């Protein structure tokens, strides 16, 4: 069965367009939920909602700072999920957090909390293929899509297994490194997209190091779409509010729609 996240991304692809998935930090500032809602009506196909974690090893300075600020304001995973519950976002959502947040709540309880809050998917970047089964089984049972990451260092045969176990989309890591905006798109971004496209029919989105509309257009020569995190979160940190983030998403959307 195809989940809501994967269905939305497939619909975009089938109509010839490219998928745009912004990452926004949950609990960052008073208007984080309004920011997510604004993103949904500005051209996002789905939204990744970050649940802050104290030790985000895959994240660069921007998302670390956003995590720290949100945690300092007293945000908890439950608080974020409670606010999402009953809120109409308008597009499918996936949460991105780290394994210990899910593990501490209990995999089954975390998965069912996501489902009850209307969250379609979940990304846990420090739970790789070798360790994912207990989580993925719980997520499957609750109807939550488990998005797995594939990296430039992933060997070919492993890429196949990752694509098979992943649902929602396959997350291609665009470069060797942590999240953050770079001056130029790494060559590895298109390479990982191309390698993934050769082994899977699922949507292939590239994130990490995709920070500008130009870079998004460039990587979408191979990829089905992009995940844009630090650029969006920086806009939140700068006090851009729902309008500022919506404007930035609009810029990515226009650039992708013009080229594809």
């Amino acid at each position: 069965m195809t989940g809501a996240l994967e269905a939305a991304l497939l619909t975009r692809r089938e109509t010839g367009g490219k998928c745009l998935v912004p990452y926004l930090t949950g609990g960052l500032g008073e208007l984080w939920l309004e920011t997510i809602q604004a993103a949904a009506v500005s051209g996002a196909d789905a939204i990744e909602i970050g649940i802050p974690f104290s030790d985000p090893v895959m994240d660069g300075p921007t998302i670390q700072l956003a995590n720290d600020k949100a945690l300092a304001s007293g945000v908890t995973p439950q608080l974020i999920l409670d606010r999402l519950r009953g809120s109409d976002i308008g597009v499918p959502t996936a949460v991105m957090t780290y394994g210990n947040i899910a593990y501490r709540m209990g995999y089954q309880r975390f998965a069912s909390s996501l489902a009850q809050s209307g969250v379609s998917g979940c990304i846990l970047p420090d739970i790789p293929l070798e360790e994912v089964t207990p989580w993925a089984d719980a997520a499957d049972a609750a109807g939550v899509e488990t998005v797995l990451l594939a990296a430039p260092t992933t060997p070919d045969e492993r890429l196949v297994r990752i694509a098979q176990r992943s649902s929602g989309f396959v997350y291609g890591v665009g470069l060797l490194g942590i999240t953050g905006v770079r001056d130029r798109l790494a060559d590895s971004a298109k390479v990982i997209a191309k390698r993934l496209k050769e082994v899977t029919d699922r949507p292939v989105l590239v994130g990490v190091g995709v920070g500008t509309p130009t870079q998004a257009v460039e990587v979408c020569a191979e990829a089905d779409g992009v995940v844009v995190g630090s650029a969006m979160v920086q806009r939140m940190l700068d006090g851009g509010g729902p309008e500022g983030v919506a404007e930035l998403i609009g810029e990515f959307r226009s650039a992708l729609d013009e080229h594809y």
Partner: protein
Amino acid sequence: MSAEASDIVERPQNAMADPSAEGRFGEFGGIYVPETLVPACQELDRAFRSAWADPAFRDELKNLLTHYAGRPSPVTQCENLSEELGCRILLKREDLNHTGSHKINNVLGQALLARRMGKSRLVAETGAGQHGVATATAAALFDMECVVYMGTVDIARQELNVFRMKLLGSEVRAAESGSKTLKDAVNEAMRHWVAAVESTHYCLGSVMGPHPYPWMVREFHRVIGDEAAEQCATLLGGGSPDVVVACVGGGSNAAGIFSGFADTEAALVGVEPAGGAAVGRAVPGIVHGSHSYLMQDEWGQVLEAQSISAGLDYPGIGPEHAHLAATGRARYEPVTDAQVVDAFQLLARTEGIIAALESAHGLAWIVQAREELAGKTVLLNLSGRGDKDVAQMMDVLA
């Protein structure tokens, strides 16, 4: 069944066995890292297995440990301290190794392995700076580039070791996030490794992190326990000590000495700082690559440890220690900073040995447990020397 046979059955059997192929010690361990690092961990696992089975590698390491690091380290019988405390105290003198702690054992092994794998750079985290200094030393010896991450709080309290690392040609980078101590230095080192994994070996300094690190680092420190078992057998007429004690942050020196006594009747005691007692709280979690005990809040946010000793100021513990605690083969006891300060002075005064604050934790527990230990033979792993802590203690005791 004869009495003799039942004695044999009661001895622990293979209590510190190798982990499963998935890197598990019982339910603990595993490989919880971003996908980018999984292939590197798997490559390291293969490389370590091959090297550890290769007599040429073992000979080269042994040669370095003997002629460069100064092994074997002696076992010292403490007449004065024994008399004062009412138990027989033996010290395994890892403080006498080159660079001043047990850390050199692991680092020489990993640097040799990195070279064998064709990696030209090392990245490391450090708390007190002992692992950082050891890594910087190995990098100098093997002509490798080296970057060491250290929390800004630790940089301030361990100025001497920062300068030593620079003198040895390494770059010391400040970890400014979170608690600005060892936990955050590990985060930064892992982030660095994610970006530089193709050229760089992560020289992790304790029995923690993703598989194969907890196992590999224990194996590189096994020499402590193997030597001590032989030395104790000589001193004690073939027997083992009644109790083997070591301080525990991540747990590398404890894993090293425990491995020599795990299958004897000796009690094994790991001593944690009260403000960083991961086993004491016994809540399982996932961070820095493994499933183990972890200080965390009710939502899984990692808590900041608090300890006078930078080397033990860590909210987690290596997964094999969690397993040893869960199986009951080892016990873990907390001591306070104040007890540690007293023990630090006691050893200096009675035996003329200035211990690292980390190692003073072990003695602090012995002092606390002196009634229970009366008349027993206690082997304490004196994991490092205290020169690095003298400036800090001048302030504490002022």
